[in-house]
């Protein structure tokens, strides 16, 4: 389905995740973050960039992988994106929601 995000028509699934990453830009991410009550800082963007890189390399994301990333530790990851960090951060990043249980 289509949703207007940051003034653009964006393709999203029923949970609001982008289905076409080429439609993503920082203003789109910013607006999705705002919906999740997150004010983005440079630290948030560093993590988002990392997630996007991982997705591009087809790495299945998990909390454990985040912990091993050396980009951010698990504790900070939860502090940056409370209320389900992997779920929220991937939505902001414009990539699919990970299906991982760990």
């Amino acid at each position, binding site marked *: 389905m289509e949703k207007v995000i940051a003034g653009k028509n964006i393709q999203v699934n029923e949970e609001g995740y982008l289905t076409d990453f080429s439609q993503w830009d920082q203003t789109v991410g910013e607006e999705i973050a705002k919906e999740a009550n997150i004010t983005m800082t440079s630290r948030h963007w560093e993590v988002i960039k990392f997630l996007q890189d991982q997705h591009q390399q087809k790495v299945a994301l998990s*909390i*454990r992988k985040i912990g091993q990333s050396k980009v951010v530790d698990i*504790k900070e990851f*939860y502090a940056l994106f*409370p209320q*389900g960090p992997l779920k929220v951060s991937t939505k902001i990043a414009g990539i699919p929601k990970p299906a991982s*249980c*760990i």
Partner: protein
Amino acid sequence: MTTEFNGEIRKMMIILSKATLENVYAAFVLANGARMEGIEAEIFFTFFGLEAIHAKKLEHLHIATVGNPAMHMPTLLGGLPGMESLATAMMKKEMERIDMPDVHEFLDILVASGVKLWACRLAMDMFHYKKEDMYEGVEAVITVGDFYKQGSGIGTHMLFI
């Protein structure tokens, strides 16, 4: 009629009473999975479940080969010396393949994710364990009553493993 938060789960209170690897992992995955969804989670370790947070024992947990029909192994065979170790080694290999951390790393992940770990006072006394014997991320040794108090509030669910 509206129910509390429309039935939404806000907090998972998990009681782990067993130290067989499959039960320990079940508790850990459920607690971690809750945090990943933004749900609070706490684990109360009691009786044999204490082994999962005992610093010297937590690396040596086994899966049960006897009395476990899902092993598809005759009970007599499962009781042979070394059988539990063999089955455990095989399971650990599979777990690494699906990106499942070992018990110690999993505890580290849980604590970093904000899961509160509690040791049962009664069971600690029974096994003559002290707080210093336990994994350093354990919050405190508490009573059942304390644990119930921790779980107070709307949207709390309790689970006994």
